[in-house]
């Protein structure tokens, strides 16, 4: 005959063991590895920042005033566009500047073809492996008044799409 004392202790021990095992399993399974494909939250924030900056640049500073984005495109001033864009991205009251980098292109239509003009080329930090986000903005260009042709878009009034790639490096 087996000694039947201490059965309650045995059951209690088994129950406690199960709870501990389950807890340990849950805690271990919450530890996730942060991979490249897992960067949705910072991506979302960066995309919002970029499209806000483009919207701000596309807004005239006063009624009938100048529209910065249109000016940069009309003058084909890629350097000025890059400086202003990154300045607005880093517009904060204190702290270090964010290490943002960008490239930009303008897509336009020439008769039946869709063409792309590189407005700002990528800098030396671009390796092709960055988790970059793309923000876009439609810009309407008026009929070009000056005699010199507006390179490379042509004279007519048109709608072009500004695309900015934004990444941290």
């Amino acid at each position: 005959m087996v000694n039947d004392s201490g059965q309650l202790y045995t059951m209690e021990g088994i129950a406690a063991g199960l709870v501990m095992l389950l807890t340990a399993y849950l805690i271990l399974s919450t530890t996730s590895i942060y991979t490249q494909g897992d960067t949705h939250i910072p991506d979302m924030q960066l995309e919002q920042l970029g499209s806000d900056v483009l919207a701000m640049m596309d807004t005239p500073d006063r009624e009938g005033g100048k529209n910065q984005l249109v000016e940069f495109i009309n003058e084909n001033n890629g350097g000025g566009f890059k400086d202003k864009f990154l300045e607005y991205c880093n517009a904060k009251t204190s702290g270090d500047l964010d290490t943002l980098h960008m490239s930009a292109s303008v897509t336009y239509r020439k008769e039946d073809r869709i063409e792309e003009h590189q407005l700002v080329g990528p800098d030396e930090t671009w390796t092709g492996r960055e988790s970059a986000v793309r923000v876009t903005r439609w810009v309407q260009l008026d009929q070009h008044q000056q005699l010199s042709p507006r390179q490379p878009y042509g004279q007519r009034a048109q709608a072009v799409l500004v695309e900015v790639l934004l990444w941290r490096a």
Partner: protein
Amino acid sequence: MACMNEEGQWIVLMGLLVAVGLFFLALIINQSALVGQTTAEGVLEFPKNDIRDLREAIFDYVDKYGNVDAAGNPSAKAVRDDIIAISLDRKNAVVDFKVKDRIYISGQWAYPVEIHYNNGVTEYDETVYRY
């Protein structure tokens, strides 16, 4: 079960409670990571900025050309074709819009603008009155 030593029951009970508490905390942490991820995925998936941007491009067109017949006005037709062709090429979205005759609404004259957008996942149609 007779003559069982019943000392230390409080200690055992507290141990159990702590284990159960830890269990629920771990459950909350586990779920919270998932919630942030799916929300951000949803935000990135939905073309909010594309649609908002397209609306503004169309409003710029309406402000400039009103509801001129695109066939009779090469300048308006070119801008309209720009928007439709570039949307398809760069955003994979089928876009169409139509500006109707001005109507008097709420004490102002407004152009009813029909906007259609479809990128295969999200379909968006609206009729908006542009003053």
